[in-house]
């Protein structure tokens, strides 16, 4: 990819395998960095890209996502010890989402684990994990390999995603179950497809060898206009994922292996990921005793919640008050175009986290060249704001 006009060799930012295609369509020339890669902020209109996802389908380049292959006779055992969920129950051809913790039960990261076969898994992560995975693999008969650059990734998300797949000859993949995973023939080669995504909508993630990435892109874009299929940038994705209540590392929390301050680390229960901890699974997993101790002591000190906020001004980084007491802070906020509601994800003290609790949000907003401030009523709600039934269908 060194023939890119904007990126030279050496230690500069890397183009993704889709770069030549996304660059041609990036009409507003809006780029940002993601794990050392250039990725698109928006192609033309974040609103259009957003609505394509909620009403039809969109393509989002997820190639910079870090990917690790964990394979070998002990892969299942090693991953079961790594993750808080029961990996032994994950069948080949299925994926699961969940966190992994350090020894004190603090979340290092959360991500999707794909079981490609009985003895081979792929773990997707947003932050580098090789150091931790290799340490966790000690004593297990497994190999851990970073395969980030060997796999290009494209998220096809939206209620019409199945039709798009059918239209390019991947009808079999369109029938994958929720969190299903399979390999399919495509254009004289193979493609791996999972029924996963980050938008909270129906959708798939397509995994393909980088040298075939442009072929995949071209096949999809050739049918784009028949399905209101739009390439999407990160700006639209952020609104989608907040609506879905999906947390983001370095926004909702800092990974325990990178946090400077212990006070910034979070347990799974802090983050509302208690459902993804399986205390009934046998044996030890990293963080087990600490998580159990926290639960025995009455649960986490704070919780991630959703907020339904009055007015139209997104409550970016707003402090939250119960009366005059400061009880938390917003981590992500947006106006939800599908719900027509002002929503946010926030961390609040556990005593103020029950759904229905009324708080005040101290919202600052841009008032031409000054800063305006408003105290808005905020109601604690479940963070999964938008969960359409067709998501699992």
């Amino acid at each position, binding site marked *: 990819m060194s023939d890119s006009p904007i990126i030279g060799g050496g*230690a500069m930012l890397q183009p993704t395998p889709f770069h030549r295609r996304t660059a041609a369509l990036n009409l507003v020339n809006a780029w940002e960095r993601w794990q*050392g890669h250039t990725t698109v902020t928006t192609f033309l209109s974040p609103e259009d890209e957003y609505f394509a996802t909620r009403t039809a389908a969109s393509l989002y380049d997820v190639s910079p996502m870090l990917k690790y292959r964990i394979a070998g006779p002990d892969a299942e055992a090693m991953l079961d010890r790594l993750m808080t969920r029961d990996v032994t129950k994950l069948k080949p051809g299925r994926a699961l989402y969940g966190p992994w913790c350090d020894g004190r039960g603090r979340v290092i990261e959360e991500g999707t684990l794909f079981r490609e076969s009985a003895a081979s898994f792929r773990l997707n992560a947003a932050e*580098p994990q090789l*150091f931790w995975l*290799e340490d966790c693999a000690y004593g297990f008969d497994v190999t851990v390999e970073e395969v980030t650059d060997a796999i290009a990734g494209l998220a096809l998300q939206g209620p019409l995603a199945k039709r798009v797949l059918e239209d390019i000859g991947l009808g079999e993949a369109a029938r994958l179950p929720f969190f299903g995973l399979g390999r399919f023939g495509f254009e004289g080669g193979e493609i791996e497809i999972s029924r996963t995504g980050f938008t909270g909508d129906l959708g798939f993630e397509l995994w393909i060898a980088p040298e075939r990435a442009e072929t995949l892109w071209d096949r999809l874009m050739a049918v784009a206009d028949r399905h209101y299929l739009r390439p999407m940038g990160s700006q639209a994705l952020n609104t989608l994922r907040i609506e879905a209540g999906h947390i983001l590392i370095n926004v909702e929390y800092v990974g325990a*292996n990178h946090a400077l*301050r*212990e006070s910034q680390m979070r347990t799974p229960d802090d983050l509302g990921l208690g459902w993804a901890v399986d205390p009934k699974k046998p044996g030890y997993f990293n963080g087990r005793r600490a998580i159990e101790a926290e639960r025995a002591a009455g649960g986490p000190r704070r919780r991630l919640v959703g907020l339904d906020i009055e007015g139209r001004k997104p409550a970016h980084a707003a402090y939250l008050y119960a009366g005059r007491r400061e009880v938390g802070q917003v981590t992500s906020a947006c106006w939800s175009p599908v719900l027509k509601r002002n929503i946010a994800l926030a961390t609040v003290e556990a005593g103020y986290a029950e759904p229905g609790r009324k708080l005040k949000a101290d919202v600052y907003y841009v008032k031409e060249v000054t800063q305006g401030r408003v105290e808005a009523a905020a109601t604690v709600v479940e963070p999964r704001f938008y969960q359409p039934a067709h998501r699992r269908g």
Partner: protein
Amino acid sequence: MKRYDAIVVGAGHNGLTAAAYLARAGLSVMVLERRDRIGGAAVSEERHAGFLYSSCSYVCSLLRAEIMRDLELSKHGLRIIPYENSATIARNGDSIAFFHDPAKTRRSIARHSRRDADAYAEFNRDIYRQCRMIRPLLLETPPDPTSVRLKDLKGLRKLQKAFAQLGEDGLAQAMQFWTMSCGDFLDRYFESDLLKGSLAGNSIIGTALGPYSPGSAYVLLHHVMGDLDGHVGAWGFAVGGMGAISQALAAAAQEHGAEIRTAAEVEQLIVRNGRVEGVALVGGEEVLGTRVVSNLDVKRTYLKLAPRKELPTDFLEAVESFKIRGSSGKLNIALDRLPEFPALRDEPLLKRGGILISESMEYLERGYDDWKNGQWSREPFLDITVPTHYDPTMAPPGKHYMSVFVQYVPPTLADGPWTPEKRDAFGKTVLDTIELYSPGFRDLILDCWVRTPWDLENEVGLTEGNIFHGELTLDQLLFNRPIPGYAQYRGPLGGLYMCGSSTHPGGGVMGAPGANAARELLHDAGVRRAA
């Protein structure tokens, strides 16, 4: 005869910092400098026509922003420009580079080891944690842990809070940093020899320790705890060379009324009834002052200037055994044009930052073995910078000034003291080393000024040529620096203060010892608030 409120002995950057703070608070201040120029080891010197050399210290990171602000150093002409990157080049043509941008650094390290690239993020996290704890302590007088004075108790409480916010992991790491060898510390994270060599370089600069000597991990921290424009561990160039720092400090001091005399060597302190009353210059002239601040290192201050009979014997013993061992040399080179480094051919911008020659920790340890045997490293660690990339005023157009810091170089050699011939042979070793990484380099040299620890001692006045005024090991840090019981910038003699890098928090062109000493003096003088 005029009696000054304070006499500062030595116009190094810390002496000038102290003088500026004292004058700013309204004291009458006289600075006396032995040499014909101010600046001590923060000097710019024109030795070859048209070229300005940062002849001793050469880069800046640790100079406290508080001092820049208090003394309005930018008004007095000081500009410090961070350089974006540094690279370690290997003899096999490979390289590893460090950028302000973590994504770029990660990619550079990943070429050697993906695992190390990940581990580097955690290593950095651990470094930052320690920096966050240490940095607020730099401009504080170290509290005396045996004292129950309110001031010390407050200081200790602050220290305890700093420890507490580290958490258990961070506190354990602090102990590791202060006591472990850099080698053992880096081995916990990394596997790549070149990466470990790159990082270990920071643990040996200016230090008579090897990368596997206990205590060397702290030296690494000392070199990365600075920050420039928000980049932790970033280093920069002073426009006009390091002398620009001293010139700006001197201008600030003079603006507030301080007098500065050069070619005024102090021969001894005048002491009456256990109290310093002034100084006697070489030639017999006396300058009287209520208080005297010594910018010299602790050995020169108490073993040369102060009358021994006025000092407690156990104190003198402690001063005599203070570790201050020379281990560094310096080459200042005028170049006809930029040299080529084949290892950096794909990344020409890397030539603008620091270039390290530090193949591995073993390479460094072997270099240290030579030092122990009374020989300069036959394969030395080199820290090369070409400040004229950023500051073209330091050389004629198209020409360049290269600063080469060399580790290890002993203060005396196994076969006797330094001679001009031996100095030339040492210079040749360094140039031969550079030539290995930059074929044709020698042909570009217009002038080469070789400086050994002996030169640093005899010209600049650094005992044994130690650039930090004493080793930065835990036994000589915080409330033990320089002498246990005398860490608060005062000694046994009334009215005598120390403001050089022998005192907390040590060397590195921070200015913090000077600022801290001035604050203590002003406290004693009953001056509550600086102007």
